[in-house]
């Protein structure tokens, strides 16, 4: 594969999100003016471009902007949805079945059933509120209808229905109900904002680059999509939880590499995700020199396979528990101190941030390593609805796709750099999301996104092979 790598966003070591572009045609749009973040202005209008990097440590207003931008993105998306948009012409029939979202502060003087949208916040201990740009209103989460088959008696006036997904604190929900005289908002239906088709999002943002790799004209996109479909030989092998200090893991890894060395066409990309050590970076683990030499050993192991060394690329995505400056997301690449020896053996190895993004011709792939499933299940406030699915991974994918955010957990559980929340944004919805999680390997297609988890290589010896040309995921084990 003839590729030209363009690493965007300034000096390699210090970019928080490194975007790599795999471009076939070198004459395609240059990415010189690569904007680091694109935020949304307060008035729901034009996106604001920032040039240059934002500081890692934001000021007080950045924290509010983090929540507001997330909310406004979803509010804008919702306003384009036919079900929730206000009809242009006021006629008899249009008022019937229109679910226009009202600002929460309007509830204080409006009566009757209304639709609101807000962030679930625990403003007081044990009391949950829906908060939007204008005000907040208390809601009662305990009365929720869980659609189990065993429940034969349901009181429809005090229970309400929810959609698929994990409703945790910090997620943005759309709720229909009525404000009671005691100030509580009685919810009848509650759900995540509907997903927007990728093509619709693209037509709205008309050429602005939200992914981070430069914008292409429609002609170029068509050419790239064509080339992508023809690239049948390209394959990505994804492994997560590769413990370099565990002999068993290294042996299994050797088997995997041997297996791929002997195939007719070697995989184009190996994605190795953290944790790279069996113990996370905490007070009890201190043998960094050891870890450094283990990376060196890995480099030597890869170098034993000449075909892989020559024709494949190796990408390393650290987990927040790997050695590094912090566990705050987005997390920077592995420190050079650890990877120097490996870099000597494999000079073109790539060390990326977490999360990171890859553009394969016209396909947008987001890679994220975090044990999300476990955390989401624990911080979930309402038992997920089993009406459509009872697969926890499916619920997780539904949650992140509806929320257009990789990690919609409360900041106390997963801190996020206030100025860099957009790095975890999934707008417009990418084609593929690779979620490294220590739970069992799974794949799930939802709302146009192919999402898969290769599983933990060290615990379960599972990994995944992905063919970008037809979005095919092969879950494998060794």
């Amino acid at each position, binding site marked *: 594969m003839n590729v030209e790598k363009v690493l965007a966003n300034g000096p390699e070591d210090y970019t928080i999100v490194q975007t790599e572009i795999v471009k076939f045609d070198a004459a395609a749009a240059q990415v010189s003016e690569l904007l680091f973040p694109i935020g949304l202005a307060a008035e729901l209008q034009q996106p604001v471009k920032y040039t240059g990097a934002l500081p890692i440590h934001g000021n*007080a*207003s950045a924290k509010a902007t983090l929540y507001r931008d997330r909310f406004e993105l979803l509010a804008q998306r919702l306003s384009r949805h036919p079900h929730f948009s206000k009809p242009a012409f006021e006629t008899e029939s249009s008022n019937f079945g229109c679910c226009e979202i009202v600002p929460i502060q309007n509830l204080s003087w409006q009566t009757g059933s209304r639709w609101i949208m807000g962030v679930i916040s625990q403003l007081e201990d044990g009391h949950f509120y829906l908060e939007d740009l204008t005000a907040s209103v208390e809601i009662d989460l305990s009365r929720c209808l869980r659609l189990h088959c065993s429940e034969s008696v349901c009181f429809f006036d005090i229970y309400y229905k929810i959609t698929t997904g994990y409703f945790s604190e910090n997620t943005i929900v759309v709720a229909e109900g009525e404000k009671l005289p005691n100030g509580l908002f009685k919810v009848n239906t509650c759900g995540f904002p509907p997903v927007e088709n990728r093509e619709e999002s693209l037509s709205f943002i008309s050429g602005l680059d939200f992914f981070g790799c430069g914008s292409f004209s429609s002609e170029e996109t068509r050419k790239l999509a064509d080339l992508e479909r023809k690239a049948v030989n390209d394959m990505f092998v994804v492994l997560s939880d590769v413990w370099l200090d565990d002999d068993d893991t290294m042996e299994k890894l050797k088997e995997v590499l041997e297996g791929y060395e002997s195939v007719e066409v070697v995989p184009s990309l190996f994605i190795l995700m953290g944790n790279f050590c069996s113990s996370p970076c905490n007070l009890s683990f201190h043998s960094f020199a050891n870890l450094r030499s283990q990376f060196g050993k890995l480099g030597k192991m890869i170098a034993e396979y000449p075909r892989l060394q020559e024709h494949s690329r190796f990408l390393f995505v650290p987990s927040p528990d790997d050695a590094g400056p*912090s566990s705050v997301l987005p997390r920077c690449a592995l*420190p050079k101190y650890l990877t120097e020896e490996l870099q000597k053996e494999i000079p073109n190895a790539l060390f990326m941030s977490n999360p990171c993004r890859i553009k394969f011709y016209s396909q947008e792939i987001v890679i994220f390593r975090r044990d999300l499933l476990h955390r989401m299940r624990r911080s979930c406030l309402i038992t997920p609805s089993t009406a459509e699915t009872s697969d926890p991974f499916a619920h997780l994918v539904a949650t992140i796709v509806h929320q257009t955010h990789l990690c919609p957990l409360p900041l106390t559980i997963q801190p996020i*750099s206030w100025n860099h929340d957009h790095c975890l944004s999934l707008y417009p919805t990418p084609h593929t999301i690779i979620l490294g999680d220590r739970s069992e390997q799974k794949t799930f297609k939802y709302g146009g996104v192919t999402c898969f988890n290769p599983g933990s290589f060290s615990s379960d010896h599972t990994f995944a092979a992905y063919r970008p040309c037809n979005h095919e995921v092969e879950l494998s084990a060794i």
Partner: protein
Amino acid sequence: MMCNIFLCILQVMRRNLLRFIRVREFAPEAEFSRPTPSFILPNIICSYCNDVRDLDLGRDPSLLTQEWRCTVAQCGHPYDREKMENALLQIVRQRERLYHLQDLVCVKCHMVKDSHLTEQCKCSGPFKCLEDASEFYSKMQVFYKIAVQQNFQLLRECISWILEIR
């Protein structure tokens, strides 16, 4: 008016105290110089003699310049460098995490911010961080200095990223 009286009393007291230690009031030695920020690394255990002590890495001159050794007279064994580096790295990681978890307080009424999306307090005052970025950076500088002096490469790299030093 009251402030002036206090200032005069303080001046007189300062003059008298300096006279006790035989320093002239306006001599250069009498000028106040801000001390370097202190940082105490608690519970360092010597692997040789099991002595436990706290080390003031910010202010102790012997620690700033030389290799760290156990200060028990008969021991003098150097401390395990990897453990020390890791102890410092964990503190750095913890502080970095805490920066992003800190509360915001109103500038006017000093109440802690409870809601997420509001940009102003109910009293219409703006919010500020409890520990703002410049304070955070100056505390990190202490660690950076230690990392450079003691040649802790990994620690130095991590702090350089936090302080955005290129």
